[in-house]
């Protein structure tokens, strides 16, 4: 019973547990290369984790907050970053340019959200549309190739552990610290729990929301830059990252209704997704099955976890948010509301 309760307070465990299960299934079916599978998953997951962390921050800001511009940002940042790197000869300049692209698109959404009170979904969709137009015009006759140095770096796997995974793990730790140890992080979580209460408690809500969308845009831009160097820039480089980023956040244990972020859970869910792709490929299922599985999983987790705070309504059976008993444990939990 106690163990069950502990599981409830550590929602990130589910992602890792599911990932481990899928890994075992792969091992059982292919009968070889368990370590290699993990190594491969670790080299693919970080991209999803970076964009997922940004999406997590946005979703943590409370009901209605979602960033659907991440997919077009990734595609656009890929082209811009590769082009910049090719033009300047510096991979760093390329990455900075990619992040800059993400920030620029996020500025458009932020202005629309805060200045024109456009709902976030529409604001980010519209900003994303503009970005995808730019992407399409760039893609026309695009000749530059990704920086070989950066690609080499991204492929580096000393002792089977991809360098990028280590770097992104560090980034994740930074996000954990950001949410726990900084004024911004605490303010974001307060806004997500109860926007009115946060405003009355003196939290500058608009500034927090703006920062959050900008952070999400920048992280998506970073993902695009790295992904383009790793694979190759293409117009639909980011397409799959829209639902995937939302899904890893939801499966990772972050509250959909806001106010509780679980950065570590994003890792577990991302590994799960990557391994699931591997498993589906191994068994020879199509992309159809992948989509069905992912969509079904998101819906399952969503409906099991139950949600928001519509004024009336009965308490949910499978509620995973901390009830009083759980909340006392938060200081030891990995989730950052403690």
């Amino acid at each position, binding site marked *: 019973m106690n163990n069950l309760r502990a599981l409830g307070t550590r929602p990130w465990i589910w992602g890792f547990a599911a990932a481990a299960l899928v890994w075992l299934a792969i091992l059982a079916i292919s009968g070889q290369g368990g370590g290699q599978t993990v190594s491969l998953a670790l080299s693919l997951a970080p991209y999803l984790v970076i964009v997922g962390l940004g999406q997590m921050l946005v979703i943590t800001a409370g009901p209605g907050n979602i960033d659907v511009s991440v997919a077009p940002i990734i595609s656009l940042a890929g082209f811009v970053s590769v082009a910049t790197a090719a033009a300047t000869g510096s991979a760093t300049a390329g990455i900075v340019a990619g992040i800059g692209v993400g920030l620029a698109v996020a500025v458009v959404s932020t202005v629309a959200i805060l200045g024109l009170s456009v709902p976030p979904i529409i604001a980010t969709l519209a900003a994303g549309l503009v970005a995808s137009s730019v992407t399409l015009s760039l893609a026309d006759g695009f000749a530059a190739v990704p920086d070989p140095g950066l690609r080499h770096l991204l492929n580096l796997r000393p002792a089977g552990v991809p360098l990028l995974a280590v770097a992104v793990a560090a980034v994740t730790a930074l996000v954990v610290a950001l949410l726990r*140890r*900084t*004024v*911004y992080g*605490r*303010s974001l*979580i*307060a806004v997500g*729990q*109860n926007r*009115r*209460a*946060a*405003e*009355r*408690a*003196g*939290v500058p809500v608009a500034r927090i929301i703006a920062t959050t969308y900008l952070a999400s845009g920048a992280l998506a831009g970073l993902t695009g830059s790295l992904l383009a160097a790793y694979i190759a820039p293409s117009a639909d480089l980011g397409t799959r990252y829209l639902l995937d980023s939302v899904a890893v956040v939801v499966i990772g244990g972050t*509250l959909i209704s806001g*106010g*509780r972020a679980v950065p570590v859970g994003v890792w577990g869910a991302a590994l799960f997704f990557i391994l699931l792709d591997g498993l589906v490929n191994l068994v020879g299922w199509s992309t159809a099955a992948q989509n069905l599985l992912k969509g079904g999983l998101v819906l399952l987790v969503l409906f099991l976890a139950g949600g928001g705070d519509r*004024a009336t309504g009965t308490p949910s059976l499978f509620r995973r*948010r*901390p*009830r*009083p*008993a759980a*909340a*006392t444990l*938060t*200081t030891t939990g990995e989730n950052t*509301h403690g």
Partner: protein
Amino acid sequence: MHVDRSPAEPLAAPRGAEAEQGAPDRQPVVLARGVTKTYGRTRALAGVDLEVRAGEVLGLVGHNGAGKSTLMRVLAGLEACDEGTVAVRGRDASGEAGPRAAAFRGVRMAYQETSLCPDLTVAENIWVSSRHCLPRLRWRRAAGEAARRRLDEMFPGHKVTPRDRIEDLSLAQRQMVEIARASLVDRLDLLILDEPTESLGPDAARSLYDYVRALTARGVAVLLISHRIREVLSVADRVAVLRDGAVIAERPAAGLGEHDVLTLMGAQVAARTEDERVRAATAGSGDRPVTAELRGATGPGLRDVSVRVGAGEVVGLAGLAGQGQQEVLERLWHPVRRDTRVHGTRAYVPGDRQRSGVLPLWTVAENLIVTAMRGIARRGLRRPAEEGAVVRDWVERLAVRGGPDAAMTELSGGNQQKVIVARAFASAAEIVLLDDPFRGVDVHTKTDLYRLIRQEAARGRSVVWYSSENAEMVHCDRVYVLRAGQVVAELTGEEISEERIIAVSFAEVGGVTETGGAGAARSRDGGVPSHG
């Protein structure tokens, strides 16, 4: 077209006979016996006995938080009572309370904040609430026709058409539609009117009461709730006084004066201790530097309000709920207009804990420190050690049960409120705004918090304190009493007493017809009334 048919014909004859005799023993339409209702730790109703008889107007008066709104909801069958019985037409109906209960179909209520859908037309709103009595086909025309006819009867010259959307109507017109909506049912037994004239003009109010008399002549019972005592006395046959969740007096309206009712309502003179008197006297004397000021502030819900707050002063905002006090606080919290000047940092203590106070996923410590954190942090980084010290200090000072690591939702309302008050005072804010924060808080907690407020004021902080509990206002140095968005009295030192505030806040202001923004702002969410 049976919606506005007059009430059941067979019953009309015997009732008429009774009316001729002026019989005091007419049969009760709704009868409540020993009704109690508790929300969490607040006992809203503590054993109410009340009967409303056919063909009479019963006036119900009581001050903020006396339990009027709860009683109304129980009588209308919207909520079940915890103990006791509610009988409609002699049949015990308390077991089947709920919005779909058939037993309560003849009991209809016009809400003060209206129960209309703003995006729907008048006719559609009538359908929502009276669909049982409308034909299945061509209901729109029938509903519109019924609404128009009823509005014509009640409020000649209303200028409302059935195709108007509610959001396009003025506040007064919305109230008219709400009253008409409530009265439209095939067999009306009891019509409950909750503050019906608050946003109506004098002419509309007069024609409404004419209609009420016509209704009672037909044997319908009417329950009238109003802060306007004189109005109640002139319309009602009997008056029931509600205090602390119980009916403490039931009198015939004839021969009853406004002053008698006010006395019954709880002008029990607050026993101020000698200590407090002395403090108030000394506090009121000196000329303090002004830290915040409203000069002739006018806008939604406010009319030419001037308020001055000195350093180290506790300024009260009193009066009936929703008369502009919160708008004053809002101006001070967001001083964007030119008529408001604020020198210094501010902190806000919200009254509605659940909606705008508690951060539900956090512990006591986290809830407490969220405001002060900004001042303590260096370059955006928190300093846990310093924060911890502040939290421990405040948890100890206010004796918050459960300690700093308890989950906020585990705490009782009173302890939650302590944390939220501590949140504001733990910050370095020079001005603390209190938005009726002690509603439903137990006496011990209140006493602690009153002491805290005086202590902090003595340290030079300014406190602006809106309270719906007039007895609390004795802890202030100066009190502004608001009515219809205007300051109707400024009381200082000795003058501050519950009796005085009640008397002043019920005073009718000349030409109070439209209170404007306060109601308009609330009308959309349509939630339960904020007081009672």
